[in-house]
Every structure is written in C-alpha cells, then in structure tokens.
C-alpha cells in the first residue's frame, strides 16, 4: 500500500495549484458546516434549554370544549336542525387539583409539581399601561417545578412569601412601562373590575422575548383573592427527570385525566418545526458547498487520469494491479478531503472564535448580547465524515476509470 501512496503523493504535489484550490473548496464547506451548525444549534439549544428550565415540562390545563352536543340534545328528535353558532367554552379551573398532584407525585419519573393560577390583567405605571399575563405561583412549590429563581435579576422569589403585594415583572414588560428599579408601585386592573396597588420586587429576564414581554408573577393567594377565585388553580406544572420523555409521560398522564395534558414539545411544536426547517436549510447550503468542492475534486482527479494515461499504463506494465491504480487515485481524492477537513477545522475554529467575540444586541425570538454558539466537537466529527464521504464519491469514478484503462491500447496509441 505504501508504494501506491508514494506515487499518489507525488502526483498530488505535481498539481500544487489545482490541489490547493480543491483543498480550499473542501475547507470552505467544512468551515461552513462547523460555523453554521454551532450557530444554529447554539441558538436552538439555548432556546430549548431556557424553555425547559423555565416552562413546565408538562402542564395540565382545563380543556376547551364545545357545546354542540348539548344544543342538539335539546332539539326534538325528529326535527331538522342546524347549529349556526357555538362558542368554545372553558371551565377555567382544575377540580380536585390536590388529588391530581398526589397521583402525579407518586410517579418515579416526576421531579416536582407546582400549581398556577393564570389570569389576564392590565398593568399601569404612571400614564403607561400594558396588558399582561398574570401567573399566580406558590413560592414554596414553584422551585420544584421550574428554575424560576435563576431568571430573577435580584433573586427575590422569597419576597412573594413575605409581601402579598409583591410582583415579579417580565423585563420587557418593565421596559415598556418605564420601570427601571424595584420598589416601584404599579396598578393592576383585572377583568372583574377590581384594581390593586402592587409593588415591583424583582425583574424576570429569561432572554425569550415573548415570555419576558408578557409575564408577571405574583403570589397565588393574592391573585386568587383579586380574581375572586379562592383556592382555584387552572394549571398544574410538572417537572420530569428526563425532559426527552416528557411527551411520553404526558400521554401516559392523559389516560387518567379529563384535563388537557401538554408536554413542552407539544407546547413549542411550532418552534421545534421551525428549527427543523432551519436545520434542513443549513444542511442544504452546506451540501451545496460540499457538492461544488466535490466537483473540484472530481475535476482534478479526472484531469490527472486523462493526462497520466501513459503513466498508468507503464505502472500496470511494472506489475501494478487495477486495485493499486484504483487505490492510488482514490487516495489522492481522500487526501484532498483530509487536508480540506484539517484546513476547514482551523478556519471553522477561527470563525467560531470571532463569532463568540462579537458583541451585539440580538433581539428576536431570544435576546442575547452576542451569538450563542454550540461548540461541541461533534460538529468537527460530522464535518470530517462529510468531507471524506464527498471526497470518496467525487474521486471514485475517475479512479475507477483509471483502473479500467487498457495499457496495451495506450501503448498502441503511442
């Protein structure tokens, strides 16, 4: 094998410029794959991680239902009828929530459970007002079902226990209202016409725009009192031990519950689908780049084969077998792929370094102060496998052609 590698090496070196162009092509593909993967997955993983840490892995909520059946039952049996309008209705509370919690807590795959009362309201600060989602939480139970404290700027979750008028306001809600510091008094107006003067004790900053822009946390008892819904809850949030099994556990829980059981995967299915499409687009771009570089490899190997026909013939006359010839040219393609991968690693690493050093305010689905990169080495491995795979396929046909040449025909043609 060494003898064929020796010749392959010499043939490759003879075409330094073309070899360099092909290597660069592969390197660009590899670099793009590494950089784009780490950008895409960095962003996606960050989003998913925030969602997993903050949101319920599984939530149990009252089900929306329609009353068409009830309307029909009222109609005479022999009447011809048609229902023109039918508003979806919701009994916005979970009956027997304590029993449900007890049942859920018995499971070994559950890490913690908490209850919420979710309502809508309008928050006013001075002349500014903003509609918000009010989430009544039990500050003792809540940390068992989420890592809410991690997202609090001043870590004052305990304030909800001691101060019944305390509010934790989403960072973007506070920004829209013009609240810059804690301790400010705000007026909360509810759908039942009641208002309350509450005090901002902390800011909630998850980095996920639509959450920080709408949520306000308060003690569940306070919200129950304000909404005249004593001892009512309308959401049970569950934290599971293995987040990837949330969907399976949710389906399992759904069997015994008349409420809607939703996993985080189902709740965020739209985002997850978008991520899938994003990934597909990313890999299509990388595929296109690598395909172009594969044509470069194909070109250089094919040119070598066509120009080196006589050399191939003499090598065969010297006892080199067809397998040797095949391997000799295949080795050149793989060498280009290998060198391209190594150069691509260096370029990819440099690009990652650059991107991670860029400071800019990213405002979109998530808010960060720069690019979030997933810098796991697995992307280097994927890039290596891709580059070798493409190099192999690009060089196989010309190598095969070389190995099938008839030396006698070449000698006869002079």
């Amino acid at each position, binding site marked *: 094998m*060494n*003898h064929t590698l*020796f*010749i392959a090496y*010499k*043939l490759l*070196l*003879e075409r330094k410029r073309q070899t360099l162009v092909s290597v660069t092509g592969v390197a660009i593909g590899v670099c793009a794959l590494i950089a784009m993967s780490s950008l895409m997955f960095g962003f996606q993983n960050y989003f998913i991680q925030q969602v997993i840490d903050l949101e319920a892995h599984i939530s149990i909520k009252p089900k929306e239902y329609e009353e068409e059946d009830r309307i029909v039952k009222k109609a005479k049996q022999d009447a011809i009828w048609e229902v023109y309008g039918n508003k979806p209705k919701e009994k916005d509370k979970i009956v027997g929530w304590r029993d449900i919690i007890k049942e859920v807590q018995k499971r070994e795959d559950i890490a913690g459970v908490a209850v919420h009362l979710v309502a809508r309201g309008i928050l006013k600060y001075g002349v500014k007002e903003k509609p918000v989602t009010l989430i009544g939480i039990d500050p003792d139970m809540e940390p068992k079902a989420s890592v809410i404290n991690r997202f609090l700027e001043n870590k004052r979750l305990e304030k909800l226990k001691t101060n019944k008028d305390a509010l934790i306001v989403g960072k973007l809600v506070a920004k829209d209202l013009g609240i810059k510091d804690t301790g400010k008094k705000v007026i909360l107006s509810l759908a039942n016409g009641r208002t309350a003067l509450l005090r901002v004790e902390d800011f909630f900053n998850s980095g996920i725009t639509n959450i920080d822009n709408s949520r306000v946390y308060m003690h569940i008892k306070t919200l129950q009192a304000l909404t005249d819904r004593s001892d009512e809850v309308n959401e049970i949030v569950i934290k599971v031990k293995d987040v990837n099994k949330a969907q399976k556990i949710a389906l399992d829980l759904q069997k015994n519950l008349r409420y809607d059981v939703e996993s985080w995967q189902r709740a965020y299915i739209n985002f997850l689908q978008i991520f899938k499409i994003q990934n597909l687009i990313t890999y299509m771009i990388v595929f296109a780049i690598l395909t172009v570089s594969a044509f470069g490899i194909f070109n250089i190997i094919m040119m070598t084969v066509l120009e080196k026909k*006589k*050399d191939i*013939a*003499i*090598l*065969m*006359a*010297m*006892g*080199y*077998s*067809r*397998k*040797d010839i095949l391997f000799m040219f295949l080795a050149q393609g793989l060498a280009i792929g290998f060198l391209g991968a190594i150069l691509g690693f260096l370029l990819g690493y440099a690009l990652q370094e650059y991107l991670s050093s860029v400071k800019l305010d990213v405002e979109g689905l998530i808010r960060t102060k720069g690019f979030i990169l997933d810098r796991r080495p697995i992307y280097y491995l994927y890039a290596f496998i891709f580059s070798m795979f493409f190099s192999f396929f690009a060089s196989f046909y010309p190598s095969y052609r070389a190995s099938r040449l008839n*030396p*006698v025909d070449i*000698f*006869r043609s*002079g």
Partner: protein
Amino acid sequence: MVLIELVNVKKRVGNEEILKGIDLKVHKGEFLAVVGASGSGKSSLLYIMGLLDFPTEGRVFFKGQQVSSMDPQVVSKIRNESVGFVFQFHYLLPEFNLLENVMIPMLKKGIPKRQAEERARELLKSLGLDGKEKRKIYQVSGGEMQRTAIARALANNPEVILADEPTGNLDSKNTQMVMQILEDINRSGTTVVMVTHELNLAKRADRIVQMKDGLLVL
C-alpha cells in the same frame, strides 16, 4: 527450459485479426529477436508474452503455468517480479527523479525503501548514470532516459526483459550502448526478447523470428 510458450495464439482487435495463430517457445537464457515490418504484430506478440495483454484464442504458458487460469493479482505479481519491459519511448514518470523511477517496481514488490534505493543506485551506476540519480527526466538526454528505463526494467531482477524497439528513438551511439547493455543482461542469464525492425540489430540475438501479417514466417 521453456520460459514462455505460446500455442496457437490469435489476437483480434475490433474486426482485425492482428495475430493469426502463433506458436512460439522462448527458452530461459536466450536472446530472441522478433523482426518484421511495421504493423506485422510484433508489439502485440510482445505484450502477450509479457502478460500485459491476453490472446483472443490460444494458450500462453509462463514457466509451464497457463496464464488464462491465473488470478489477475498473480498475473500482476509475475509482471512485477519476473518481467521487465523496455519500450521505444522511455515512459519514465516525470514526477519522479531517475532514482525514484527505478525504485518504483521494487517498492511494489515490497522491498524496503532503503534497500530499494541502494539497488537503484547500483543499477544506475552500472548503466553509467552515476551522479545523476536525483535528476528529473527533463534534465537528462534521450540515451540516459532509455538507460534509466532499462535500469527500471532490471530493478526486480526479472527472468525476462521484453524490449519493444528499445533503440527506435536513439542515435547510433546510444543505440550501440543500449544493445551492449541488453547483451550484457542476457550474458548474466536473463532472457531477452527484443522486437525490432532493424535486421542488423536483430542479428546480435541468438535467434531471430520474423513476423508478417500476424504470422511467424521464420
């Protein structure tokens, strides 16, 4: 001892029959010259004798073994270890220097690089190319290229050298030099089969066979 035997060998290329039933035995240690006009089938015969090509009909034996029944890898191995080709054109590989060109068949055989290099140096020295080992082929003369090609053919100490018009591209001085080398090779016990259209060169061989229109006529 018969080294190569051809029995009723026919070769067809397209619609044309270029060998029309050749029976020939090449004995170990002999210097055989194959003469004939251009297009008479001399080179085709040589390629078949060197296991580089195969007959359409008939049988070829190499040291008593029928070639058609051999595995292609075995045929390649025989070509590498027992046959040395010298062509009218040197066909040296331009990417390599003279030393490396001579080393290539040895490396294929599996001889370690250092040993191959030593043997290649000896061969080049014996053919008057001492000091030119590191030169590329475009840095030497036509005669020197052809001597390098002979050194490469001799690299694995083959049992037979098959030379196809080895002097066809050389001036008279280099022609004499190459012929002398082939005679010396033969004297050392290696069988030499030389294809030529020059009768005066063929006369230096032990035996001459003549080809005409794909048949042996002498």
